């Protein structure tokens, strides 16, 4: 006689929270040891930070009151917020970068709305926005007083350096990549030499070249702006790296696509712009975002040639007699900004990476 035995539940140690803990944290004995070691590592890293940043911290704007607390003085950040954002930009004119920022955020917001994405107006707006933003920040038009680039600084300068350099490096790198993948006997070695030369040297030497040697190369009466020189240096540097990314994309487009375009009697530039580049660039968007993260991080080197970007502002604010020596707070704040921007971008690039294969199917 067949007897039905009801299914037994797994033992309590295999399911639920307990089971999870047993399986993921404790089960072979060395796992338990690792858990203990990890706990100790987290404890020893987080506890002093927590005590410094939260328990013993103060948010008062008065430095004398802040001194009574042994922890962080976040009032310093509140006090210096505009300086961190825009450097020594004149106080009366700080609304201009703010308006520019709001414009930029609105542009990004509009572009994220799906139904607007393909429209022609978005493209026109994107093309016009750098000019509008530049005019807003630099001034000289519509009665806005001119604010020279030596007043630019902080997060604003960091973002401007990286965005402008990326935009400028893009067309150069497309040309370099096309030159490198072509078989033109003069242009190809030229592109290869440029890319390998730039990729073989540190960014600092390029920045030194842009800031010290470039003025020597120019006619004596031409005087390039300091910020512009840094932009030239960063652009030169990243166009080489970007070119290698784009070359990867160009090689990823099937040979048949080139041949099909040729068979249709397309001219070279038509073939490249209409057929090849749209496909190649779509493949390399994620590495290009990573490249942009690299630019964002590496703009911090412009401090070495005398610009006051987000990282250098940490030194500038802490030499202020009112909040003298609050270096830790400044660093944490600056690090927070870099981290948010870079982590956000890298999440975006991962999101794109997941999305792109489905687009090509």
């Amino acid at each position: 006689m067949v007897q039905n035995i009801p299914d037994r539940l797994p033992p309590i140690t295999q399911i639920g929270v307990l089971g999870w803990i047993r399986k993921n944290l404790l089960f072979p004995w060395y796992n338990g040891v690792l858990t203990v070691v990890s706990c100790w590592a987290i404890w020893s890293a987080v506890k002093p930070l927590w005590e410094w940043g939260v328990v013993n911290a103060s948010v008062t704007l008065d430095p004398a009151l802040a001194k009574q607390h042994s922890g962080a003085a976040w009032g310093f950040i509140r006090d210096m917020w505009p300086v961190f954002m825009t450097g020594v930009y004149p106080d009366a004119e700080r609304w201009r970068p703010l308006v520019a920022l709001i414009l930029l955020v609105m542009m990004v917001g509009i572009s994220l709305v799906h139904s607007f994405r393909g429209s022609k107006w978005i493209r026109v707006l994107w093309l016009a926005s750098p000019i509008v933003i530049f005019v807003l920040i630099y001034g000289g038009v519509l009665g806005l007083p001119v604010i020279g680039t030596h007043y630019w600084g902080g997060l604003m300068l960091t973002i401007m350096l990286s965005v402008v350099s990326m935009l400028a490096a893009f067309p150069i790198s497309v040309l370099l990549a096309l030159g490198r993948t072509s078989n033109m006997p003069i242009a190809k070695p030229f592109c290869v030499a440029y890319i390998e030369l730039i990729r073989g040297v540190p960014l600092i030497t390029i920045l030194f070249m842009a800031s010290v040697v470039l003025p020597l190369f120019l006619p004596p009466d031409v005087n390039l702006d300091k910020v512009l020189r840094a932009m030239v240096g960063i652009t030169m540097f990243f166009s080489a790296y970007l070119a290698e990314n784009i070359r990867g994309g160009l090689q990823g487009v099937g040979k048949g696509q080139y041949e099909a375009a040729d068979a249709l009697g397309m001219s070279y530039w038509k073939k490249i712009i209409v057929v090849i580049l749209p496909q190649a660039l779509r493949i390399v968007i994620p590495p290009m975002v990573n490249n942009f993260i690299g630019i964002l991080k590496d703009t911090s080197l412009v401090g070495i040639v005398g610009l006051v970007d987000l990282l250098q502002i940490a030194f500038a604010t802490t030499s202020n007699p009112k909040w003298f020596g609050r270096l830790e707070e400044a660093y944490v704040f600056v690090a927070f900004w870099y981290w948010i921007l870079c982590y956000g971008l890298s999440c975006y690039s991962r999101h794109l990476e997941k999305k792109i294969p489905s687009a090509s199917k």
Partner: protein
Amino acid sequence: MSHSSAPQKVVFWRNPQVRIWTFQILMLVAFLWLAVSMYENTLINLRTRGISSGFGFLKNEAGFRIGESSGIVLPQGGVLWFLLSLVIGLCISKFISSHQKTISDGPLNCKWMSICLFFSIVLPAFTLYFFRNSIEILHYAESSSYTLALAVGLVNTLKVTVIGCVASTFLGLLIALGRLSPNWLLNRLCRWYVELNRNLPLLLQLFFWYFIVLQQLPNVRQSISLGGWMFLNKRGLFFPTLVPETGAWAFSIAVIIALTGVFVLFRRSNRLLNETGTAGKILLPSLGLLTGLPALVWLFLGQPFTLDYPVFKGFNFHGGTGLTPEFTALVVGLTIYVSAFNAEIIRSGIQAVSKGQREAARALAMKETQVMRIVILPQAMRIIVPPITSEYLAIAKNSSLAVAIGYPDFVSIGGTILNQSGQAVEIVGIWMGVYLCISLLISLGMNIYNSKVALVER
């Protein structure tokens, strides 16, 4: 039909060949024009500033101090002979060992191995012995030339690069293993380590280590004593150094021979494993070799090294060796930054080895360590090596951030010379040339290694 079957005559400006060449010639002309005008502008600018061009200034006296300068080893005639004999010896032994496989795999092996050893080790060692006084060690002083200052900077850069490469690989391996671990907590911890380090600029991290962490250390008087023989304070880390005594030469040679022996044993057991399936015993013989040979030399020639302890005298430590805070901050910062990238490379390399390989290896009753060493790692290596090469190149290049925290590396010393002499074009040229050479050497070495680990496809 108006069109004939003969190929239509193309108007010459529509001919792709003509277009390509016109474009290229225009480009060349533009480039030459740019170069010539830049050259002329530079001459004019230099004349107005009263700077003479050329590399003659390199012979001038430097006149500045360098905080960290190791002696530069300059090989004289005899060392060149040694290097020549080393190269010849290595070539001959390579030739022999490549032919040895075709001759026999049997008992002759030992004979060929000894011939190889003779050519690659004993021959150069003899040469070195006969020309042992042919190494000159130059020490930098303020009266030395700019050339020597630059050489000191180059040595400092290479020092940081080599230590950074080795340390970041090991740390990266640990982090990667942590990320692969089934332990949830460890996994998350390593993941956040990577995310934190990857998304912060290296310069910020260097500043953090230099201006915040190292500034928390006590003054020289209140140094933290580590076991009574290492001392940590604001001026750096001080530890004892080995001072060679009479037997040091023989002792070092004994250690080298023992290490070579262990290497040979290891190769042999690997081959035995490949051929017969059972590995030869290597642990005990190699331990015996490693301890026995140096111990014998120690017994017969007396203590080969004595320790020179750092002692606090007056205002600072004397004796021993000190690591400057700049060096420490640079090495720690670089290592931790790059280890995050290396960890991701190693992890993705290991994960890219297909699961079936691991299962197959287990099905063959391999031990877990064997699975990793024989099956997984060799396959992961060919994925890991190319991207890790570019990380090594990045270390070499990023060590130039030393200039920001005052470590006297190649760029930093070049910058000082640039400020003193105003020879901007020459200095930037030297920088670029030297960094290109370093980059080329690293990628050459790694490419040779890569060709060894790469998958051989038929």
